[in-house]
Structures are given as structure tokens and as C-alpha cells.
């Protein structure tokens, strides 16, 4: 199969999954509570409420309701978020999504840049202390509750440093008040570069350090574990022996011959961990008051704002599905055998 054929096939396969996701979420909203609540504000009169019910088809049979529901979703009418001053859900998402994407991308980069070398070191020094240390570090990563890690970091890198008069990291938020860069892309790091203000840039970076590390730790651990095991597998292959036999330096053998082949499964893990990052963002953003969609979702839970939770679930599912598609395509590009299946 040619690459473009494979891409088309994968895109077509995406459609039933996306429809399935909407059916699942639709059923969930219909099982619990009154779905009309997503469109009703306390100030509405009885007539207005009846009208809302008619417009969105809540008086119709369930399968007709689904069509209304899909119509609403496709038209961008996702209800109103009570946890966000009765703003339309889609507007809240537009407003808050860049913050989440910025945090997630930085966390993912951090996890990849640190995780892969850790895995390589662990594999090349198998059963020596760097290997044990890395494995313990990785096991801690998949065992630690990230909300607890966040609090510990705040306690150490903000509170303890501050009371000892040392330079400390900011406690929460995306930037110091009054240091917000003019909005262009919604990504504060990029916006501060566009504004050409180095102190603003450093301020946003300082605000990113703790949440990004906190969020990335789980993925970092998973990437390190995966790289280690696939490196170990590759290192036993014949072509590595050949590379060594022809007198290549160990460095070249590891980075040019082994790592390149070992990275293929790691790519999958990076993609899969994106879902974990989005889920982790709910916890991390809550701890660090990060104004993204995650903290909004967490607040919606407390305020029982179902429209917001459903909207958030849909947007995350779509993002996750797209990222997985990209991962699969990368995989097919790196390993042509996948396309033949």
C-alpha cells in the first residue's frame, strides 16, 4: 500500500470511531439528569425553557434526539457553561484551550528529551547502578499521584525556598500579573517572543517549569521504560553485531544503529502518553491555577456543570484521536511493513 492510500484508509476508519464517541457521550448525557439543563439559565421563564426544549428536540424520541444533538454539535452549539459565567461552551474552549496545549506540548517535549536518553543510558548500563536508578525513577513516575507531586513541588520550590530568602519559582498562574504578553497566538511563550520582551519570556518560562515537570513525569517514566526495553531488544540483533564487527565506535553503534530502530515503539508510547497528559492536565491545572480547559473541567465537576464536562470530553477525545492518527502515520512512515497489513 502506498503512503497516501494508507492515509486515506486511516482517515476513513476515523469516521466510525468519531461517530461512536458522540453516540457514547450522547447516551451518557441522556442516562443521567436533564439534558436540557445544558441550555437553560436560572433567569429563563417557563415559556423560554419550553422553547429551548423544542429547539433542541428534547421532547422527541431518543433516536431523533441524537440527530438534534449531532446537529447542535456540528453547528457549534454545545450549550452554556455555568462554571464559566454562562458563556457558550465552545467559546470557553476557544478561550482556554491554548493554555492547555502550550502546557501539554512543553510537558511532552520535556518527557521526550529527558525520557529517551534516560532509557538509552539504562539499557547500555544494564544491571549497573545507572540502570537501577533509572528504573526506580521510572517506576516512581508511574506510581506517584501527580496532584501530590504538584503540592510537594509547590511546598519545596516555592514555600521552603521563599522562607529561606532564596530565589523561588512562582506558585501558580501562567504569568505574573501585569506581565501578560499581548495576545497573538494564545501561547504565552510565543507571544512574549513576538512582543520582543525577554523579561516577559523568562517570566512565562518560570511559570511553566513546575506544572510542565509535574505533568510530564508520568510520560517521562513511560518513555524511559519503553526506550530501555526496545533498546535491549535491538542491541541483541545481528546488525548491531555487524556494526560492532566492522569497527564502528560504540557511540555510533548506539546512536546511529540501535537507537534509530529502537525509537519506533517509543513513538507509539509518546502518542499514547498524550492521552495521559490531557487527563493529567485536569489535575495539574487545578493545582497550579493554570487557566486551561483542564482546570475549567475540574471546576465544572464541583459546580455540576454537565455541558462543560461533556464539551471537554468531546474536545479531548477528538484531540486524542487525531494525535493517535498522527502517531500511526508516523509509525507507518518509519516502518513500511505496517502499511502492508
Amino acid at each position, binding site marked *: 500500500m502506498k503512503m497516501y492510500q494508507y492515509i486515506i484508509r486511516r482517515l476513513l476508519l476515523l469516521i*466510525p*470511531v468519531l461517530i*461512536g*464517541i458522540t*453516540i*457514547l*457521550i450522547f447516551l*451518557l*448525557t441522556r*442516562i*443521567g*439528569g436533564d439534558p436540557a439543563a445544558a441550555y437553560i439559565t436560572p433567569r429563563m421563564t417557563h415559556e423560554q425553557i419550553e422553547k429551548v426544549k423544542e429547539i433542541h428536540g428534547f421532547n422527541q424520541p431518543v433516536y431523533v434526539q441524537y440527530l438534534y444533538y449531532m446537529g447542535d454539535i456540528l453547528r457549534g452549539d454545545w450549550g452554556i457553561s455555568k462554571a464559566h459565567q454562562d458563556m457558550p461552551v465552545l467559546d470557553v474552549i476557544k478561550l482556554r484551550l491554548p493554555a492547555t496545549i502550550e502546557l501539554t506540548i512543553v510537558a511532552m517535549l520535556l518527557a521526550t528529551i529527558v525520557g529517551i536518553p534516560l532509557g538509552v543510558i539504562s539499557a547500555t548500563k544494564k544491571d549497573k547502578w545507572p540502570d537501577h536508578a533509572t528504573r526506580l525513577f521510572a*517506576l*516512581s513516575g*508511574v*506510581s*506517584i*499521584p*501527580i*496532584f*501530590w507531586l504538584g*503540592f*510537594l513541588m*509547590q*511546598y519545596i520550590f516555592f*514555600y521552603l525556598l521563599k522562607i529561606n530568602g532564596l530565589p523561588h519559582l512562582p506558585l501558580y498562574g501562567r504569568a505574573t500579573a501585569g506581565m501578560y504578553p499581548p495576545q497573538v497566538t494564545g501561547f504565552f511563550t510565543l507571544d512574549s517572543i513576538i512582543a520582543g520582551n525577554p523579561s516577559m519570556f523568562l517570566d512565562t518560562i518560570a511559570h511553566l517549569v513546575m506544572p510542565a515537570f509535574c505533568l510530564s513525569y508520568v510520560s517521562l517514566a513511560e518513555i524511559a521504560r519503553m526506550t530501555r526495553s526496545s533498546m535491549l531488544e535491538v542491541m541483541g540483533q545481528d546488525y548491531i553485531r555487524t556494526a560492532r564487527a566492522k569497527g564502528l565506535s560504540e557511540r555510533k553503534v548506539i546512536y546511529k544503529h540501535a537507537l534509530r530502530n529502537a525509537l519506533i515503539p517509543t513513538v507509539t508510547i509518546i502518542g499514547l502518553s498524550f*492521552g*495521559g497528559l*490531557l*487527563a*493529567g492536565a*485536569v*489535575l495539574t491545572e*487545578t493545582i497550579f491555577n493554570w487557566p486551561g480547559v483542564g482546570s475549567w*473541567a*475540574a471546576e*465544572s*465537576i*464541583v459546580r*455540576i456543570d*454537565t455541558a462543560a*464536562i*461533556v464539551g*471537554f*470530553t468531546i474536545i*479531548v*477525545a477528538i484531540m*486524542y*484521536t487525531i494525535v*493517535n492518527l498522527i502517531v500511526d502515520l508516523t509509525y507507518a512512515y518509519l516502518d513500511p511493513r505496517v502499511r502492508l497489513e
Partner: protein
Amino acid sequence: MKKIFQHQSQTKKSIFSKEKREYFKKWLSPRIKELRYSLHLIKQSPLAMVGIAIILILVFTAILAPFISPYGPEEHIWSESKQPPSWKHLFGTDETGGDVFTKVLWGARISIEIGLIVVLGGLGLGIIIGAFAGYYGRYIDEFIMRITDIFLSIPYLILAMGVAAILGKSIENVMIAMIVVWWPAYTRLVRGQILSVRENQYVEAAKSVGAGDTRIIFRHILPNSMAPLIVQTTMDLGNAILTAAGLSFLGFGAGPGAAEWGRMVSDSRNYFMSCPWMMVFPGLAIFITVLGFNLVGDGLRDILDPRLRRGGGKT
């Protein structure tokens, strides 16, 4: 009356007749050998042993919590609120004068309960649906697999959040939400195992002597596909505890002040700068517990994987 007793003792005798005993011995001995060998291998992996020790301590704590905790889980000594750790209060006290040590001990109960119910619930559903899909194949398989695809295309904490939000806030609903999220992964795992085991000759043999589908699935196929299931279940016990803690941190599940680890960390939010013990100990309990299950799962994987077994199980 006497007659009845005589009759009973006779039937008892016949249950444990010599042939039966011989048969039972024959049935048991390879299994004991296998278990002994596995134990021998597990002993060689120090990390797995640490994990087992952690789990045992956790289980004992959960069972003995009412007897060893110095205070009640809902007891508040208002005059002693926000006290740092001391001999009187080993882990200090919280803002309402609750003893953190006591609450951590009681929290083990809820954690184990949630972990077991969620994982066994998910596993049970997964085995039934996965066996169905894998054994009958074709359209049923295709249909079930597409449904699992949909469930797996939403990150699990977020799907659990959505389900729990709709069901309402309570520990039971958190468990239901987590089972809803957990079954697809097991279904796929069981199905994959069955697909590979189904082709074995002994399945063919069982079929040819006229064994029914249920018997073949539960007596021949499932017992032979247990290894990866055991590893996954062990790791998932930790994962389930971690996810449940995350959900209750977000406000699902137990209400404020409850002796539940995630909730305790969440409740400490406004105080942990000045009273770090309120946050450190419950969080540490979650961390160590989940680490324990992961260590054992890691060890079991190395032992149960025949490719690694030849190396003597040492990792």
C-alpha cells in the same frame, strides 16, 4: 437420627475415596510444583519481594485498622487541630483536629476496596465479553472490538470523570464509572489471548470429544491465557487506586473530611504550606501502595514471560 448420621458419614467417606484422593493428588502435584518454582523465581527478584511486603502490610493495615488506630476515623479533637507530628499524633492532626495517622490507616480500607471491586469488575466483564468475541469471532468480534475502540479513544481518567459526573458524587458511582472505563482493555486482552490459544491442538482435541463451548472456554482456553491477565490485574490494582485517588481529589467520591487518601490530600490544599504533614502522609500512602503493586506486577511479568524465564527470572 442415628441412621442419618451413618448415611452422612458413608457419603463423606465416598467423596474422599482412595481413587479420588489419588486423582486429586495427581491433579495437584504439578500445580504445586509450578507454584513452588514461581515462588523460587520471585524470591530472586528483590524488588518484587519489596512489592509483596508492601501489599501485605497494606492488607493487614486495612484489616486491623479498627484495632490499631489510636482514634476514630471521624473523631475530631478541636482543641488539637493542626498539630505537627508527635508521639500523641504520629502523623499530626488536620484542621478539624482529626488524627492523620488514624485516617491514613482507615484510608487503606477504602483504597483496597475500590481497587479490588474495580479491577475484578472490569476483569469479569472483560473475560465474559472478550471470551465471547474471541471464541465466536467474525461479526460479533468485529462489533465488540469497534465498541472497545470507542471507549479506548477517550483518555480513561476523563471518561471516568464524565461518567462519574453524570452518575453523581459518591464512592459507589466512582467505582461504577471506573468499571465502565476499565472493561474494554481487559476485553481486548482476553480476546487476543483466546485468539492465540484457540488454535492449539488440545482445544481441537476437547472439541472432538464433544466438549461444549462454555467448557472449552472456561476449562481449556482461559486457564491457559492467565499469565498476561495476572500481570495486568496486579498493575491495574495500583492504577485503579491511583485513578480513584485522582477522582476523589477532584471532588468525586468521598465528601470533605473523609478518611480517604485522595480526599485528604485535596482537603489539605489550603493548609499544606504551614502544615505539610496533612498533605505528605496520605500522598505517601498512595504512592507507596501503587509502587508496591507496580513492583509485583513488574516482577510477575518477568517470571511469567517464558522468554525471560530461561534467564532464571533475574532482572
